[in-house]
């Protein structure tokens, strides 16, 4: 692993040097072909299904703090991990690449004054939005260190979903776009009933997304034809049902959480509500999903494990303070972070706590995991990297 990192670092240095020679370059960060099914964490939720489910078996508590680093700005959205490199978008318009193993800075570039929003890496390209720029949406070539294209798409606050040559994204002007990811040209677009500020998800042929008023849409990827649309029906009549975070898709089911404290499971074929459960407390984060269960973080601090097919509650765990970020799940355990600063490891089958680590400040990003490292950041602008004790020992050896 050390050799691998060294190789990428060298490549980055070379490309950076090329960037200096070529004055039109903005700079480069990393180079790699991304496989969407890889163990990398390249977009919010870890994949374009956004299940926050990792396949690694390296996430074993207790964890040791591998390194921590303080920056001069807060993290914008979620960082990504690509082949040993942590790329962090910041609220001050900076993008920083760190070596995952020791946090050593590889490169940093400032792309503007406004936050880098909806950061995602796919293939050799990074995509993000800059709020105050006319051409607000950008595709950036990580190999050449240049913008590939810039598009006028208005205010975009969420990450895209990408499949093959098509990129899907919604904006604050109620428009949902399908772009050619190679040149940013609009393939199709549709205006929905309210603003779209959460990321879409993909199945094999359809794209799914929500607007701010609880409208859910399924469109054919290729031509944008509406397959179905529906509005989430409130449990209390007259009470608006509004999603605050992105939907999650898994095996023909679309899961949406809302501010009125509801979890909806929709059939991806026709948009029919298969089941819905009202917890009561607002839900600010998306669910996480494995093969059988759905894990719901509630603002009350409770974590619910529900059966995927019925919504029946398996167990609950009380974190005692607000949880407003997604839960990370592996095959055997789940990792939740509370706003107060607790990182909680629970046994997935029972909800029993296994290990708890408390930071000094509020946690502002969900735990993400790749290549043996758990990454999290707080509101004092620290980024922490944890590694399991077993892995650390192995690496030391």
């Amino acid at each position, binding site marked *: 692993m050390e050799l691998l990192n060294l190789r990428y670092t060298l490549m980055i240095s070379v490309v950076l040097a090329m960037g200096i020679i070529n004055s039109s370059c903005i700079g480069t960060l990393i180079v790699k072909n991304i496989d969407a099914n890889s163990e990398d964490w390249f977009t919010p939720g870890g994949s374009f299904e956004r299940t926050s489910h990792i396949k690694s078996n390296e996430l074993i508590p207790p964890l040791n703090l591998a390194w921590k680093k303080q920056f001069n700005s807060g993290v914008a959205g979620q960082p990504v991990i690509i082949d040993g490199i942590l790329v962090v978008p910041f*609220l001050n318009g900076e993008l920083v690449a760190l070596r995952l193993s020791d946090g050593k800075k590889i490169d940093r570039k400032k792309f503007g004054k406004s936050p880098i929003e909806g950061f995602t890496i796919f293939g050799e390209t990074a995509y993000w939005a800059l709020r105050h720029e006319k051409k607000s949406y950008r595709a950036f070539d990580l190999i050449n260190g240049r913008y590939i294209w810039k598009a006028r798409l208005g205010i975009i606050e969420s990450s895209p979903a990408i499949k093959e040559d098509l990129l899907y994204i919604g904006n604050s002007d109620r428009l949902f776009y399908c772009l050619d990811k190679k040149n940013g040209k609009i393939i199709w677009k549709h205006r929905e009933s309210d603003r779209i500020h959460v990321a879409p998800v993909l199945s094999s042929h359809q794209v799914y997304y929500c607007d701010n008023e609880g409208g859910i849409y399924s469109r054919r990827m290729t031509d944008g034809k509406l397959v179905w649309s529906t509005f989430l029906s409130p449990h209390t009549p007259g009470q608006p049902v509004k999603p605050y975070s992105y939907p999650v898709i898994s095996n023909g089911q679309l899961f949406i959480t809302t501010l009125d404290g509801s979890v909806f499971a929709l059939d991806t074929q026709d948009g029919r509500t298969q089941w819905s459960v009202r917890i009561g407390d607002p839900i600010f984060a998306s669910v996480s999903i494995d093969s059988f269960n759905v894990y719901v973080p509630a603002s009350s601090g409770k974590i619910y494990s529900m059966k995927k097919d019925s919504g029946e509650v398996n167990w609950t765990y009380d974190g005692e303070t607000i949880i407003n970020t997604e839960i990370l799940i592996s095959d055997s355990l789940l990792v939740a972070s509370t*706003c107060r600063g607790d990182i909680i490891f629970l046994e997935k089958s029972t909800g029993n706590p296994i290990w708890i680590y408390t930071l000094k400040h*509020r946690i502002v990003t969900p735990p993400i995991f790749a290549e043996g490292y758990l990454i999290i950041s707080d509101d004092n602008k620290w980024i922490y990297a944890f590694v399991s004790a077993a892995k650390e020992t192995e690496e030391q050896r």
Partner: protein
Amino acid sequence: MRCLHKVTFLLLSTISFTTAQFYFGRNKIQYHPFDWYVLTTPHFEIYYYKEEEELAAAGAFFAEESFSDLEKKFNFTLVQKVPLIFYSSHLHFQQTNTLPYLIPEGIGGFFEFVKGRVVIPYDGSTYQFKRVIKHELVHVFMHSKISQILRLHNIMTYRSPPLWFTEGLAEFWSSGWDSKAEMVIRDALLNDYLVPLDRLDLVTSGFLLYKEGQSFLRFVDSVYGQDKLLLIMEGIWKNNDFYNVIETTVGKDFKEILNEWKYTYKKDIYPLLETKETAQLSSLSLTKQGINSAPVYFSSEEGENVIFLTNRTGYSDIYIHDIHPENRSVKPKLLLQGERQAKLESLHLLQTGIDVNSSGILVFPSKSGATDVLNFFDINQCEMLNTFSHADIVSISSPAWSSEGNRVVFSGSDWRGSQDIYLLDISTMSLTQLTDDFYADRDPTLSPDGRFIVFSSDRGKFGNEGYFNLFLYSPQDSILKKLTEGRFNDISPTWSQKRSDRLAFSSDRDGTHNIWVIDGLMNHLKESPNSQPPESAENGIREPVLLTCLATGAFDPYWCGENDQDLLFTAFENFRFNVHLLENVDTLLSPPERNQIYPFDKHKVMWKRSFLRVKGDKKNFPYKKNYTFDIAQTTVAYDPIFGFLGGAQVTMSDLLGDNYYHFLLFNTAESSSEFLGRFNLAVTRVDLSHRINFAIGLFHFANDYYYSYGYQFFFERRYGAQFALSYPFSVFQRVEASSVAWKTEQDRYFESDPFEAFLVSNSVSYVFDNSIWGPVGPVDGMSVRLTVGRTINFTQSNIYYTGLLGDFRKYFRTSLKTLYALRIMSWINQGEDVYYRFRIGGSWGLRGFKQSEVVGRSFFLINNEFRFPFAQQLLLRFSSFDINISPIRGAIFFDMGNAWYDIPNWKYLYPNRLLKSYGVGFRGNLLGFIVLRLDIGKTTESKGLFTQFFFGWNY
């Protein structure tokens, strides 16, 4: 460099008055040495004194409950424990040192930013306590959340949302909507004074600002969704302009949202006009100016009178007004002045009722020193007969006479905060406590035969939701029954003493407060054996009937007329409280719509107050002083001659604000060899925890000074110790004393011999101030300051310096809006002091003369000024902002005075005669705290007109 000297002098003088001995001003008195304890809960540190232990446990529960709810509303949590300081009464709360200034009666709690403290008084109502805790915690959460967002975005300056948003959100998230908010918004819409929110910060009325904000945010929440309020806060980084943030979040132009809000409310309210009336049209208004409340009726051979509380002159007073039809046009007469003397420090306007018996003895509560007292005032003789106070009763409200005039029933709060009903026998002055529990029992009224008491209380089924209903109590057999029940507020019951079957009260059961009447009450009570109220529904009473039908609000009913055929009440309309008379009530009372019997059930305990049970000794411990920073600032300056100069000032205090330490550290070295010798260092400790406030300190100052009148530089090193104290006799008057002992070493560069002396300076001052202030300065009352000081040179065993100061200011009201203001001031200094000079010219002193034109070591000054209203407003409207100078007051002035150096020689620097000036002036208030001054006039020393423009309040 001279600037630095000035800074040093300024800091020195600040330290010399560390006991907060302001020149004038009223006193905050620590009457009680509270025995503080700390209760720690998962998210709070609760500071309470022993007597309110139960209240603290309840407050802890409510705080944790609110915390849990606000975490969800804000999508955020607090990491540090929040300090909550509880007081069991507002009178205790007013003694807090967590804020340096006096706390008005209208303040129900506050969040203080420096130490993040929340300070809350208890007013007897559990629900209100819970609501205020949540209100203040909304501020804590909002402040912390916005700070976090700005910090993460590297935005260094705090972007505070406008006050209407912060207070409106705190109101909305703590209480949702209530009849008071409905009343204010209805009134504002019906009388067309709703202020656009983006200009609300210019409005001085806090209550309107709170309620408009609450109403608007309620509208946004209901129409655009609950997420919008959260998203507005979360988007505060997006734009400097808060209104732009609202627009981008809601997706509409702000003015469009405002119009929608107003239109929606108008649609709700305008249909009410079909059935509702205005107070002005439906009854006779007896008052026009100021806030007027608590009317009571007194008839004698001399006439029929209404007596009421009012602040028509600025002070709270009691007035009497003849309401006989032939005499109504005569202006109300002042019966008793309040807020000018210690015994009547406050009359609790809008918070209490008063009463008068048939002999003309007025009973009313007032704040007098540490607690409230009941005052008995003979209206016929115009003299105070007696006062009553009790060691266990802290605050008193709403006294009511028995028909025989020998007993008074009232509501009183004890040290625990419990608000109960008490009965006072006037002949023996013996007190009986009738209720004794945590429920808030208010506004008692006695039946004509004295057997029953009806009062308003939250002890009913819906009391834990904040609703007050009526209860009937029989003192003879201690039986308590509920009279009304529902999710509404029934307050201020008043039993007709001549029509004993009637009880009037104010209720918001139809949306806002109106007067309702229960008829046939006494008949039913007479039928019951053994003085017990009937228990069966068949023997119950009729439903209350609506008497007034105001769209806004009617309060404080009081029967009047020869046969109680009329009713006095307080009406809220056009943002004023006025006393109204409703004549011939019989003709207005319709039979109940549903002629059914209202239940008259036996009372049982309906709800219990929740407590947070904290186990373990470590959770509950005596308060220990931990000092944390209030101010920590450093200064670095660069002088081309003297190089770098630097210093620091630090203030630390304990959490209750009772004890302070000030540290000053400065260095004025001009070369490295002087570094150690030129340290300016001062340490002062201030203790405000007792009635006597004191300060002790040590100092060392070494500096070059410039004596401008002698055009000389001199170096002085002075070091020594100081002691100062302040003892308040009352809120209006105090004595101050200080003693400073120091060694001075002066090197006067243009004199050959250096000067060294050991000096001791003592001074004593008497300060009186009961003045009240308008928008540009004092408008009524009097201020006096007398100081005598003497400095003795122990090295030469002589008197080094003597100073005498006299400053007398009196404001004579010539009408409600005009006054004559007089200032007579003299400061006489005699001795060897070399550099202190008075400059009395200028806009604040002898007008028409330049500040440095009239200079001396002593002076006298007489200012005469007639002040009058000139204009409501001067508004300059620019495309993106307004400049609003409001109001503008006019003045005609005549000044005289002069300054001199030595009394024996009577040597003036200026011509040896009395200097005079006269002219007109204008003073305008900008932004609520800046007063612009323009004076035009003539002096006796020049022929032309002078014009002086300056800033500052009137004397």
